C-alpha cells in the first residue's frame, strides 16, 4: 500500500497512471451528465411552486457542490505538500484552483439567473450564503494571483499553500450559513433529517448530475495535473526521453 502511494508520488509513474485513469472517469462521467441533462429537462416533473424554473438546479447544485469539493482538494493537497514536501501534491493543488473557480462562477451565475424570477432579485448583499460563496471565488482568484506573482515554483507552492489552508475555514461556513443565520437561500434539500425533500423523479437525475460532474472534475483535474507535472519536470531525463520517443 505505502509502496504504491510512494510510487504514485513519483512524477513519471503518476504521469502514466493518470493517462490510464482519465477515460475511466471521463466516459462514465459524460454518460451520467448526458442522462441527467435529458432526464432533468424532459422526464422530471415540474415543481408545484416554481414550475419549470426549478430545472436550473441540475447545473446549480452540482456546480456549488464541486466548488467546495475542489477547494477541499486544493487545501488538503496543499497541506500534504507542505508537511511531506511532496511536489506532486502541490501540482494537484495548483491544478485544482482554476477548475474550482469556474465551478464557483457557474454556481453564482445559475443561482443569480434563478434568483431574479423566484426571489425577485439577482443578488442580495449581506446574505450569508451568497456572500460566503463569493468570498470563495475571491479566494480562488487570490490563490491563482499569488502563484502567478512568484516565479520560483517551490516558493509559490509554499506561499499559496498557506493561503489555501487559511481559506479552507470558509468551506464549512458556506455549507452551514443557511442554518446558522437567516438567509434568503433555502436550507439543504438533499442532506437533511428524514432524507431528501424531493420527488424521486427529480432526485435521480440530480444525483446523476452530481456524480457525473464529480467524475468529469476528476478527469479534468488529472489532465491538468499531467500538464503541470510535465512543465515542472521539463528539465528532467524522463521528460526528455518521453518527448524524444514521441509518446504521450
Amino acid at each position, binding site marked *: 500500500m505505502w509502496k504504491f502511494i510512494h510510487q504514485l508520488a513519483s512524477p513519471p509513474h503518476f504521469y502514466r497512471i493518470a493517462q490510464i485513469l482519465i477515460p475511466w472517469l471521463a466516459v462514465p462521467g459524460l454518460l451520467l451528465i448526458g442522462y441527467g441533462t435529458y432526464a432533468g429537462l424532459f422526464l422530471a416533473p*415540474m415543481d408545484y411552486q*416554481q414550475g419549470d424554473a426549478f430545472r436550473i438546479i441540475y447545473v446549480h447544485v452540482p456546480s456549488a457542490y464541486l466548488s467546495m469539493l475542489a477547494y477541499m482538494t486544493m487545501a488538503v493537497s496543499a*497541506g500534504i505538500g507542505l*508537511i511531506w514536501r511532496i511536489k506532486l501534491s502541490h501540482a494537484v493543488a495548483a491544478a485544482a484552483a482554476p477548475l474550482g473557480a469556474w465551478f464557483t462562477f457557474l454556481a453564482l451565475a445559475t443561482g443569480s439567473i434563478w434568483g431574479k424570477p423566484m426571489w*425577485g432579485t439577482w443578488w*442580495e448583499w449581506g446574505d450569508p450564503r451568497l456572500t460566503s460563496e463569493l468570498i470563495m471565488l475571491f479566494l480562488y482568484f487570490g490563490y491563482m494571483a499569488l502563484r502567478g506573482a512568484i516565479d520560483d515554483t517551490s516558493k509559490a507552492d509554499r506561499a499559496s499553500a498557506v493561503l489555501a489552508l487559511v481559506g479552507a475555514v470558509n468551506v464549512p461556513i458556506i455549507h452551514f450559513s443557511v442554518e*446558522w*443565520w437567516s438567509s434568503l437561500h433555502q436550507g439543504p434539500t438533499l442532506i437533511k433529517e428524514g432524507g431528501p425533500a424531493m420527488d424521486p423523479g*427529480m432526485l435521480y437525475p440530480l444525483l446523476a448530475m452530481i456524480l457525473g460532474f464529480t467524475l468529469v472534475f476528476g478527469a479534468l483535474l488529472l489532465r491538468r495535473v499531467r500538464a503541470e507535472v510535465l512543465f515542472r519536470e521539463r528539465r528532467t531525463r524522463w521528460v526528455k526521453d518521453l518527448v524524444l520517443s514521441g509518446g504521450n
Partner: protein
Amino acid sequence: MKPRQQRMLAVGLVVVGVAIATGLTLQAMKDSMMFFVSVTEVAEGKYPDNRNFRVGGLVKDGSVTREEGSLEMNFLVTDLRCDLAVSYSGVLPDLFREGQGVVAHGRLREDGVFAADEILAKHDENYMAPEVADSLAEAEADAAAAKADHVREKTAGLQEGPTGCPSNDS
C-alpha cells in the same frame, strides 16, 4: 521533534487557530450576520433604529388586500407567534403567495405598519410534482389534523388570536 512533525504541528495550529478566530468573530457579529429579523424580534423591539432593515416570515393566509386600480397592497407577515402589517407598492416575485415565506425590506412606520420598498420571496427546501402537491392538499382536506402542511395549520390556529406575542412598549 523531526522537521516533518514540526511542519505538521505548524499546519495544524494554523488551521485550528484560523478556525477559532473566525468562529469568535462570527459569534461576535452574530446579529449583523442575520439577513433578516423575525416578526417576534420586531415586536420585542430588537431591530435597528433609524435605518432600513429586513423582516422575514410567512404571508398570512387570507390577509392580502389590494387597492383597486393600483399596485398598492397590504398584508400580514407572521412567524406563527406574532403578526406584522406590511404595506407595499410594486411588482412581486413569482413565488409570492399566501402561506409562503417572504423577506420584506423597508422601515417600521410610527403607526406600527412596516412600509416595504422591496419584497423578496423565500423558497423552502421542498421540491414536489404538482400532482403530488395536489394529492397532499386533498389528503389534508380529508384529515384536517394532518400535520404535513405545518404552515397552513399553524397559521389557521393563529386566527383565533396569537398567543405569547410580546407587546412592544417602546
